[in-house]
């Protein structure tokens, strides 16, 4: 009985705290980006101000269906975050994550504006680009640890990154898609606020836009939790290192974001697949050769 109660409390904690951390990271992102561009930048709490404002605004609805998908997307992403942080099945988490991202794409299509249609198509292309790598991460982690469960993977004697350095690099490459950073911010960028680069959100206003923003906060936490899984192992101090690694990965992404221009979808797709298959295959082959001796 007590076990269940603790679990429920843990889940509530994750659902409440992860968007707060995600929003804070998003504020930090804007601050660091501004400093890199020689500006002062907004307050670190700016994303929270934005969401609070959006929740108060009037909503303009183009039809009754398209908002529904955004809320579903949020639900699925929350489920993914809870699943990963509670130490659940990584493979299940990845598939639920895909459904969550698909719901967002459907929301874009359902709002039936030419801009949001282009945005949705770009989002689909991005999913095509990063999905193989995310799957490969799960396969690699399973191959190395013998389990798809996060709690087993981070309870090993050595961190997974020692065995899967190339897959980790490929994942960092893919992280740029997931965090919506340049050069791979084709469907929804943080910095461009014009037409196509905000395409998928064209018809969303007020509360719906706030929900999209909150979903992105959860997504940030979810994406960084993969980095965590790679670094954490049985020793307690390693969890501190894992958090630091997540933070370092995030800062690296911000710097890449500010240093790169947006690429075309063809470059994004081919480079992501190239990196995934080269690093992924090389890592798995080396790992299988090593395990023979």
């Amino acid at each position, binding site marked *: 009985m007590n076990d269940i109660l603790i679990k429920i409390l843990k889940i509530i904690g994750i659902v409440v705290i992860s968007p707060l951390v995600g929003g804070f990271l998003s504020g930090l992102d804007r601050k660091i980006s501004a400093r890199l561009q020689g500006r002062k930048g907004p307050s670190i709490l700016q994303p929270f101000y*934005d969401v*609070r404002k959006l929740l108060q605004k009037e909503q303009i609805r183009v039809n009754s269906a398209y908002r529904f998908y955004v809320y579903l997307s949020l639900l699925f992403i929350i489920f993914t975050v809870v699943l990963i942080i509670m130490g659940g099945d990584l493979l299940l988490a990845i598939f639920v994550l895909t459904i969550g991202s698909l719901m967002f794409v459907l929301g874009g299509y359902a709002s039936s504006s030419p801009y949001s249609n282009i945005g949705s198509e770009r989002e689909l292309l991005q999913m095509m680009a990063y999905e193989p790598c995310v799957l490969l991460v799960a396969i690699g982690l399973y191959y190395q640890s013998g389990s798809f469960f996060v709690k087993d993977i981070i309870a090993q004697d050595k961190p997974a990154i020692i065995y899967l350095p190339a897959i980790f690099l490929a994942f960092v490459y893919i992280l740029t898609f997931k965090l919506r950073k340049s050069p791979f911010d084709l469907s929804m960028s943080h910095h461009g606020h014009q037409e196509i680069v*905000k395409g998928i959100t064209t018809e969303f*206003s007020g509360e719906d836009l706030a929900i999209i923003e909150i979903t992105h906060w959860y997504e940030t936490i979810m994406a960084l939790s993969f980095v965590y899984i790679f670094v954490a192992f049985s020793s307690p101090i390693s969890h501190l290192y894992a958090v630091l690694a997540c933070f370092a990965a995030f800062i690296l992404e911000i710097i890449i974001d500010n240093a790169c221009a947006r690429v075309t979808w063809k470059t994004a797709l081919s480079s992501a697949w190239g990196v995934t298959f080269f690093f992924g295959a090389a890592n798995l082959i080396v790992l299988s050769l090593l395990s023979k001796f």
Partner: protein
Amino acid sequence: MNYIQKSPWILHYDGSSCNGCDIEVLACLTPIYDVERFGIINTGNPKHADILLITGAVNEQNINVVKQLYDQMPNPKMVVAIGICACSGGIFSECYNVIGGVDKAIPVDVYVPGCAARPESIISGVVKALGLLEEKIAKKAS
């Protein structure tokens, strides 16, 4: 409490301006003035925007566009006319196709005169609009 004050998102529309005021509006985003430190973002979408900045006079061609942009913005919203052309038509007011200032098409809350309006006065106009918005909301509530 007016939450827009902390994150006013702007939509910028060029009526029939000579681009002088437009350049000054965009100059507000550069490192020297950096309006993003107040949470101001230049959106490209009326459905995301809180404040409509219009430069240039309204003419027969764009009056419907201006009206539509205004209608597509979710409430509460404010309109700031930037530059003398947007305020009254300026030197173009005598032209055969020019109707006049922006207030001929939609209700304007703040007029920022100047040719071209300085970035400082544009920022001041936006801040004034935010103050007026507070009054508007308070009036509605009482």
